[in-house]
C-alpha cells in the first residue's frame, strides 16, 4: 500500500512550560521537540501495515519551519521511505488552513491510506486529519484504537463514551490514530544511518487565509499545595469528614 503519515513536531509533553515574552506563545528555549505522541503511533501503524502486507511505500509529511526536518528524518530512521516538508514560517492555529495545504499535497499522491495522530499535543484540537479527508472527499475514521487492512478494505475500532464501535471502510481513506494502535519503535543505528540518505523534498506550503489566531497563552493557576491528612486506615474518618464538610461532595 502507499501510505502517507502527516506528523507534527511538538515539545516533549513532560516539559515545564513558560510563556514567551510576546504573551502569545510558549517559550521554546530549552524544550526538547520530537514527533508528536499520537503522530508517532501513526508512523508506527503505517510501518506495521506495510510490513504485514509484505511491501508498499510510506511517505511522511510535515508542515512547519525548517526545524520539522528533524522530525521527518526521525520518521525515516524508524523506516519510512521518504519525506515531504511543506515549508511555512510558523504553524498557524487555523486547522482548516493547515488541512488545505496538506490536502493540496496529498490530492494527486495516489495514497491508499493517509494517517494522522488523533490530535497534536500543543493545539489539542484534532481538526486537521478529519478536515483533510473532507477536502479530499474520502472516508475518515477518527480516533481509531485498532486498525487493520484486509483485501483492500479497512477495519477499525473507535472508543465512544461508555461504548465502542467497529467500522469498515473502503480505500482510499484517512484514519486518525488514538492510543491502542501501536507503540512507536525506536530507530535502530542502521535506520538512523539509512535515513540520512533517504529523499526529503522541501517546498512552500499553500496555506491560504488564516482565520484562527492565537492571541494569548497563559499558564493555568497552580493548584494549592497538596496536603497529607494521615496514614493508613486511621485517617479514613478524617477524610470522610473533610469530604462532607470542606469539599462538600458527599
Amino acid at each position, binding site marked *: 500500500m502507499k501510505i502517507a503519515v502527516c506528523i507534527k513536531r511538538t515539545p516533549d509533553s513532560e516539559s515545564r512550560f513558560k510563556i514567551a515574552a510576546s504573551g502569545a506563545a510558549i517559550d521554546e528555549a530549552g524544550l526538547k521537540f520530537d514527533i508528536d505522541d499520537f503522530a508517532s503511533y501513526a508512523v508506527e501503524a503505517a510501518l506495521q501495515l506495510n510490513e504485514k502486507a509484505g511491501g508498499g511505500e510510506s511517505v511522511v509529511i510535515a508542515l512547519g519551519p525548517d526545524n520539522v526536518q528533524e522530525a521527518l528524518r526521525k520518521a525515516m530512521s524508524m523506516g519510512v521511505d521518504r519525506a515531504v516538508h511543506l515549508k511555512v514560517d510558523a504553524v498557524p492555529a487555523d486547522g*482548516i488552513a493547515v488541512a488545505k495545504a496538506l490536502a493540496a499535497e496529498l490530492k494527486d499522491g495516489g495514497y491508499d491510506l493517509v494517517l494522522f495522530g488523533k490530535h497534536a499535543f500543543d493545539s*489539542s*484540537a484534532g481538526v486537521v486529519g478529519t478536515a483533510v479527508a473532507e477536502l479530499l472527499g474520502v*472516508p475518515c475514521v477518527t480516533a481509531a484504537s485498532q486498525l487493520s487492512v484486509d483485501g483492500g478494505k479497512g477495519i477499525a475500532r473507535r472508543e465512544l463514551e461508555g461504548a465502542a464501535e467497529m467500522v469498515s471502510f473502503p480505500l482510499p481513506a484517512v484514519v486518525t490514530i488514538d*492510543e491502542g494502535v501501536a507503540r512507536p519503535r525506536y530507530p535502530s543505528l542502521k535506520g538512523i544511518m539509512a535515513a540520512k540518505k533517504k529523499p526529503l523534498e522541501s517546498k512552500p506550503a499553500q496555506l491560504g487565509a488564516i482565520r484562527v489566531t492565537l492571541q494569548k497563552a497563559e*499558564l493555568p493557576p497552580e493548584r494549592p499545595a497538596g496536603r497529607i491528612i494521615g496514614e493508613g486506615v486511621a485517617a*479514613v474518618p478524617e477524610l470522610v469528614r473533610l469530604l462532607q464538610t470542606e469539599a462538600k461532595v458527599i
Partner: protein
Amino acid sequence: MANILVFAESRGSDLRKVAFEAVTAARALADATGGGEVHAVLAGPAGIGARAGDLGKFGADAVLVAESSDFEKFARESLAATIAEKAKSGGYRAVILGFSAQGRDLGPRIAARLDAPIASDVTEIVSSGDTITVKHPGYANKVMLTLVLSGSPVVISVRPSAFTAKENAKTARSETLAPVAASGATITVTSVEEGARGRPDLGDASIIISGGRGLKAAENFKLVEELADAFGHAAVGATRAVTDDGWRPHSDQIGQTGRQVSPQLYVAVGISGAIQHLAGMRTSKTIVAINKDKEAPIFKIADYGIVGDVLDVVPALTAAIKEARKDH
C-alpha cells in the same frame, strides 16, 4: 443579531448531557450577539423528535428534527452534510457542538464543508462581535490558549462539563429537517459494543474513582469498583500503566493520551502521579490520593492524601462512605 445552530447530541433515544451544555453555550452566544435565535439540530432514529421539548427548556427557540434510521449508528458523513447544509442556508453566526466522541468527529467535517474557522474543546466564549474570542486548554491542559476566530460562520466545540447547562425555559417550536445523504464513499458501522452498564461516562461523571499499579493485581481493581458503588453515581478510570497491562480497557485511561476529565471529586487509588496521568485529571475540583509512598508526586496536588496500603485503606473508605451516605 444572528442565529446560532447547535447540534444536540443523542445516543439511542436519549439526549446526552453535552447536548444541554451546547444549547446553553449557544443561548449565551445568541444573547451576547444581540438576541438571535438558537436552532438545535436533533438527529436520530424515528421518534427522537419526542425529545425536542427538553431542548426548549435550556434555551432553544427551534428544534430541527432529522429522523433517519441511519442516525441510529452515527451516520457521520450524512449528519455532517445535514448540519452543514442547514448552516449554509440559514445565515448562522456559529455552529456549536460538544467536544465528545461524536462532536470531535463532526466538528472538523462541518468546518471543512463550510470552509469555516473552527475552535475545538472550548471552555469559555470570551467575547463576540466581528470576531469571536474563545479559550481552549492546549498542551494537555498545561497552557490556556486564547483564540480569535474571524469570518462567519464559525464552528465551536465545547468541552463537556465546562459549560453548566442552565434552564432558560422556552417553548421551542419543532420543525422537520430533511437528512442530507452522504455524497461519496462512507464508513460502515459493523457493530457497537456497549460498555459496563449503570456507570456514567468519565466525561459526564461528577465523581471518578481511578486505579493505578499500586493495586498490585488486576483482580484488586474490584476495590475501585466497590468504592465507586459506595459513592453512588461514580465513574471508574485507570492509569496508562494499568490499561497497557490489560487490567482495564484503553477507553478507561485518564491522562494526556487518554481521557481528560474535571470531575468534582477525583479519587486516585494506588496512583503515583506520573505527568502523563496528571495531565488528564489535574483540573479536577477536589483530588483525593491514597498511596503507600509518601513521596509520590500525586501528593503534591492532592487536596487530601492518605499514606497507606490501598488494599487496607480502600475497603475501610468504602465502608465509611457507605455509612455516610446511608440516607441517600
